[in-house]
């Protein structure tokens, strides 16, 4: 294999693929990136952690076709430190790969490409397209609620499913047992009959990074065990979480009769300010609701107390409720409009937060007993 490639191009795509590679591996070849040069077709970079795989094709002058694998992080670090604008030549022979740029010479050890594991996609019957901007929004508005707790593995991802409510919709939901975030969008063409899938957290994280640099649309193809994202020059394939997402519709309250309308920015800033006092671990913020005003307060036995009044529209009976400040801030950080609705019932019941009843995003938050 022999090819020459521009440093900037190589760095960008290596940046994409190397983040899939785990820092520590028990299987040596999983630390490596597969580099495959195709005559006249540029080079293909591929990395995997056995659950997630990214393949990216970049332009290059290929003198001799061939393939090899080298340590992804090492190669990435080398390319990162090479002078800007240099041409990088990759040449693999006899179990070594030479990386030359300018006057720098590297000779990296390789592992045979035939050992490199490739995820078998199988048949992916459902195929549809979503604009990259929409997918970005879906991920942003739901991913913060993904659980990190391994014992409930089926919550470690975003749940995608289609339903026919009033009109056909695609819904994405994530929860960690304390809060729930759901995003609804009109069902894209081709998504009918889609199986319910849970896309794992790592895949979501990598996907989100790639979406930053992407305009246009993303092609999504999936079966009940695999999903593939077509992201321009890159293709990401991931296994899905094999589990059943709980029936989250049951926890979305419908009978919360106390409505608070409030400016999310002043609310967010108020919560953030009073939470400064809270101790690191619990961060409980108490909200005292009264006619057209809420008082946020935090009491910490160590640090003292803080309180702030925030104006809002509220007409029901006054009462007090506590929330985890971090959870509130996570949700408020995702709201763009200038007013949100907070539907409350009592100090122990789930609370519903959304911009309005047309909004695509909806959040449910469990209060804290303080």
């Amino acid at each position: 294999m022999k090819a020459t490639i521009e440093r900037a191009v190589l760095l960008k795509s290596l940046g994409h693929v190397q983040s899939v590679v785990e820092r520590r591996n028990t299987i040596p070849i999983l630390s490596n990136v597969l580099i495959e040069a195709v005559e006249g077709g540029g080079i293909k970079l591929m990395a995997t952690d056995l659950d997630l795989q990214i393949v990216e094709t970049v332009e290059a002058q290929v003198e001799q076709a061939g393939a090899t694998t080298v340590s992804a992080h090492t190669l990435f670090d080398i390319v990162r430190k090479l002078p800007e604008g240099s041409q990088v030549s990759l040449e693999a022979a006899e179990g070594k790969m030479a990386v030359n740029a300018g006057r720098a010479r590297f000779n990296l050890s390789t592992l045979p490409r035939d050992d490199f594991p490739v995820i078998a996609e199988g048949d992916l019957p459902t195929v549809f397209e979503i604009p990259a901007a929409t997918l970005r929004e879906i991920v942003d508005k739901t991913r913060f609620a993904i659980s990190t707790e391994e014992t409930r593995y089926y919550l470690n991802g975003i749940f995608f499913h289609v339903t026919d409510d009033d009109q056909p919709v695609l819904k994405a939901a994530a929860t960690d047992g304390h809060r729930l975030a759901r995003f609804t969008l009109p069902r894209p063409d081709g998504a009918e009959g889609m199986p319910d899938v849970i896309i794992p957290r790592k895949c979501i994280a990598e996907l989100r990074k790639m979406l930053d640099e992407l305009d246009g649309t993303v092609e999504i193809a999936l079966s009940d065990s695999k999903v593939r994202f077509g992201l321009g020059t890159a293709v990401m394939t991931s296994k899905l979480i094999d589990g059943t997402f709980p029936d989250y519709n049951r926890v979305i309250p419908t009978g919360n009769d106390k409505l608070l309308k409030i400016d999310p920015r002043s609310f967010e800033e108020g919560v953030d300010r009073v939470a400064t006092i809270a101790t690191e671990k619990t961060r409980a913020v108490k909200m005292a609701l009264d006619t057209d005003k809420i008082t946020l307060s935090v009491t910490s036995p160590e640090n003292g107390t803080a309180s702030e009044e925030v104006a809002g529209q509220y007409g029901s009976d006054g009462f007090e409720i506590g929330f985890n400040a971090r959870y509130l801030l996570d949700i408020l950080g995702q709201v763009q409009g200038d007013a949100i609705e907070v539907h409350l019932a009592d100090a122990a019941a789930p609370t519903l937060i959304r911009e309005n009843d047309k909004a695509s995003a909806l959040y449910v938050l469990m209060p804290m007993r303080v």
Partner: protein
Amino acid sequence: MPIRRLPEHLVNRIAAGEVVERPASALKELVENAVDAGATRITVRLSSGGIDRVEVIDDGCGMSAEEMALALERHATSKLPDDDIEGVETLGFRGEALPSIASVSRLTLESRVRGAEGWSRIVDNGDLEEEGPAALPPGTRVLVENLFAKVPARRKFLRTPRSEYAAAADTIRRLAMARSDIGFTLEHDGRRNIAVQPGETRPERVAALTDRQLIENSVAVDYDRGTAKLEGVASLPTFNRGVADHQYLFVNGRPVKDRLLIGAVRGAYQDLLARDRHPVLALFLTVPAGEVDVNVHPAKTEVRFREPANIRGLIVGGLRHALDEAGFRSVQRPSAAALGNWQAEPVEGGVGQSSTAYPQGYSSEHPQPHQQGHPQGFQQRAAFFTPPPGSDQASVWDGAPEYQPAPEGKAEAAEAPVPDAATHPLGIARGQVSETYIVAEAEDGLVIVDQHAAHERLVLERMNRAVAEGGVASQGLLVPEVVDLDESACDALEERIGELAELGLELERFGPKAMLVRATPAMLGAGDTKGLVRDLADEIAAYDQHLSLKEKLDHVAATMACHGSVRAGRVLAVAEMNALLREMEVTPHSGQCNHGRPTWVKLGHGDIEKLFGRK
């Protein structure tokens, strides 16, 4: 097959199966008899772990010849004078032990009532072999030989003499601890292994039977609650063991083994000791005879309390109270080994010995805890003069009371302390060593404080106080978690729902065999709820205590305390050091870090003088 009444010798052998299963259990019965007979000195001689021979000699009230004959009958006893089995106050009462032992061994019983003639009776496996007058001092001598010689099934199941001896020694230890007014001697194969004098105080007796250093490193427990009373000795958290076998419980003077003790001790020492370390303690519980049933098991090692929850509360409360009073105390003296390395230096020092005179190899053979800051030559010489590891340094440094730093005029004269020092037990900070240890001068010696460990403990205590005042916040769950458990485990958890809710865990019964978790402590974040509830259920079943939840919360608090405290390696100003010392003096449990290691040690003036050969 007709039903018939079993012959007497068979009945005795069956009873022996319950009471006498190994030499240690026979020994226990015999020594208990001696104690009940009012003896002041009891001598026990064993051979081959008691398999070949068990001999118990006491100076108690003795028995007349007629009583001796009767004593060897079943259910014959002098111990229930008014037939009040509910209110037993002697150790034995069943009247089964002697005939049972006599039916499975060759038993020689000799006894003399003060002022009367002695009599002897020899019974071989249930049959009277001979009887006649005997010459012996007042009291009783019981000799059991060839235990189970004619019961091969039992004999086969005996362990090695060594482990039989260990069991027998443990029995004696427990009984001796229970009665510090009686002197005990245990000889095994001609060697005297335990010898305690009559009339010792309880702490002395406990220390003599466990660890001599316990005396200096323990607190006295003395706690009343209603009719029940708890006394005893408990080690400071800094004085701990890797196994929990040095924990003794006595109920009304009777040694018992009860799992209630394990749970209660863990509860009391929680957040003072790492989970795998155990304190040394002996607790003496006195409850009205009606509150406890000792007639549960023939061997009487188990008892049943009418209200176990109260007893548990009493033990936890009593221990906690005693430890709280200990305040900032910890193992006060540096370990003997550490001192040993210092000690040798001045004796031969200053003669101008060249360090090169000693081979390098010596210094590597001995651990050197005080390497920093000494010149190279000093280290090597100190190592050379260090006594070999096998030598008995502990006896020099720790045993005898005369080495206590005495508050005498000499110490004052060495250097006039700042007047303040008198009022501050931890002294006045003089400086910092390797940015880790605070060196302070106290009235009676030199105090060295580990700044990180000490501050970590202070922060934790502060956080615990905050939690105690504010309660634990709990985070509701969107989808309540269902945890499948046994029915009995669910019942146990259901009883404790109130207590658990106070710690932030809200549970609800969900059908006969499941619990529903509605809310979890916010501090724990999104942890493994199912695992936590299962652990709690297991613990309640095993110890009648829910320790895990508190432990988990403490662990979070401890981690935060660790991050929020002054680290080793930070330079402290003298004012900061003094502030730390003053706070340690007023904070409970500041004598050990969260894992039971000491936060400070004191080198008394006496110790220092010793280092320089002045004493």
